[in-house]
């Protein structure tokens, strides 16, 4: 079941952190990267992320699956940003330095810098997300949610989702193959509306079996008195070690730096044009 999220079981200092600590770190990190637009901070986060990648002993080869999505996403987004607002950069930085051409579609240094920051912001979170995905056992992830204060019924819903994703995936595949064997066209050869209809045809048996699955599981859980007490224990839960606390403190520091930079720059941006 771990393969969908690409969990890689390979001992490293990052693997040995508890899931809860890593989740808190991920949240703090992405929050810090979300709030700031300071070039220096973002560049620092990118470099720090790449270093952590080494520490976590994750190789580029392990995560190469994301590159095509990422490239597509970035290229389309970059083009759209430019087409829709070629002077957004000038609005942000307050100056307008033409590099190429002039007028509405003219390329300005400010726009270039803004889009560079945008891409940088993107790369500031990707390494940590990948690192989290590759080094955290999904079952431990659910247990860790409860530990950081999420109600256990919700943490359990997350655990259930993780548990049943492979089953549902397998079932979807089986139903889809059965329909295709009966001549329902799902590939690119069929027009879009036909494909949508065919997909709904697969969905109906899938959903109806899932509904009876919901009944079965909830009956089983109710028979075992799930939800009767206010607390529960988790098999995969581990207590915090000093390393976890240090990691969380360091990530909290990132947020402080981000806030401090916003104060120093008088805004989210670092402006080299002034």
């Amino acid at each position, binding site marked *: 079941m771990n393969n969908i999220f690409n969990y890689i079981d390979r001992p490293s200092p990052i693997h040995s952190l508890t899931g809860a600590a890593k989740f808190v770190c991920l949240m703090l990190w992405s929050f810090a990267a979300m709030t700031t637009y300071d070039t220096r901070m973002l560049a620092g986060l990118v470099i720090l992320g790449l270093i952590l990648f080494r520490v976590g002993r994750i190789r580029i080869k392990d995560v190469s699956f994301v590159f095509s999505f990422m490239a*597509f996403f970035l290229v389309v987004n970059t083009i759209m*940003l430019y087409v829709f607002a070629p002077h*957004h950069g000038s609005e942000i930085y307050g100056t307008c330095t033409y590099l190429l051409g002039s007028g509405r579609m003219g390329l300005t240094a400010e726009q270039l810098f803004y889009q560079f920051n945008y891409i940088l912001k993107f790369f500031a979170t*990707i390494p940590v*997300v990948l690192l989290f995905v590759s080094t955290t056992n999904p079952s431990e992830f659910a247990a860790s949610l409860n530990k950081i204060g999420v109600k256990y019924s919700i943490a359990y819903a997350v655990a259930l*989702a993780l548990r049943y994703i492979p089953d549902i995936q397998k079932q979807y595949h089986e139903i889809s193959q059965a329909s295709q064997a009966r001549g329902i066209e799902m590939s690119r050869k069929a027009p879009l509306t036909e494909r949508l209809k065919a*997909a*709904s045809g697969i969905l109906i048996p899938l959903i109806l079996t899932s509904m009876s699955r*919901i009944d079965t599981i909830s009956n089983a859980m*109710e028979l075992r008195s799930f939800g009767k007490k206010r607390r529960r224990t988790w098999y995969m839960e581990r207590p915090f070690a000093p390393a976890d606390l240090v990691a969380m403190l360091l990530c909290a520091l990132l947020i402080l730096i981000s806030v401090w930079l916003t104060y120093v720059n008088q805004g989210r941006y670092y402006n080299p044009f002034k």
Partner: protein
Amino acid sequence: MKNFSVKHIVATGIGAALFFVLGRFVAIPSGIPNTNISIQYGLLAFIAAVFGPIAGLLSGLIGHFFIDFSFGWGIWWSWVIASAVCGGIIGFLTRKLKIDEGEFDKAGIVKFNFFQLVAHLISWAVIAPILDILIYDEPANKVFVQGLVSAGVNVVTTAVVGTLLCIAYAASIPKKGSLKEED
């Protein structure tokens, strides 16, 4: 958290798993980033209509979070939150529909589709773009075009897939009073 029974917890989990599988493996790109023709919103509307706002909200949140996670392009919070809001609103608006008692007639279909239209417009054409502007400081015209396109696409897929699912599910449930004593 009233009325949030074991069954709702399980429905949230299974709903999120279904949302993930449909979004991750059945996605058809529409040519605009973050914007897939995604049949999972039909499913989300169905789960929300049957199990209520909390199950809808959490299924959207967990399912979308996992999708972003497994694609590895980072977590696009603005859109994750929009998915959750969408499930929550549909669940809240459709609370009077009794699909789980086997009732889903023409009036029900019209109501369901009106509610999902409202929910999609709020989440994709208002919440997602505003969060994108707050977090990424993207130009407003870009994010609103993105939002409107995905709202439109999601409304259409929900109208097709979600309605079909509700009809099929309602038909599979014996209606109240469908048993008669023999004369």
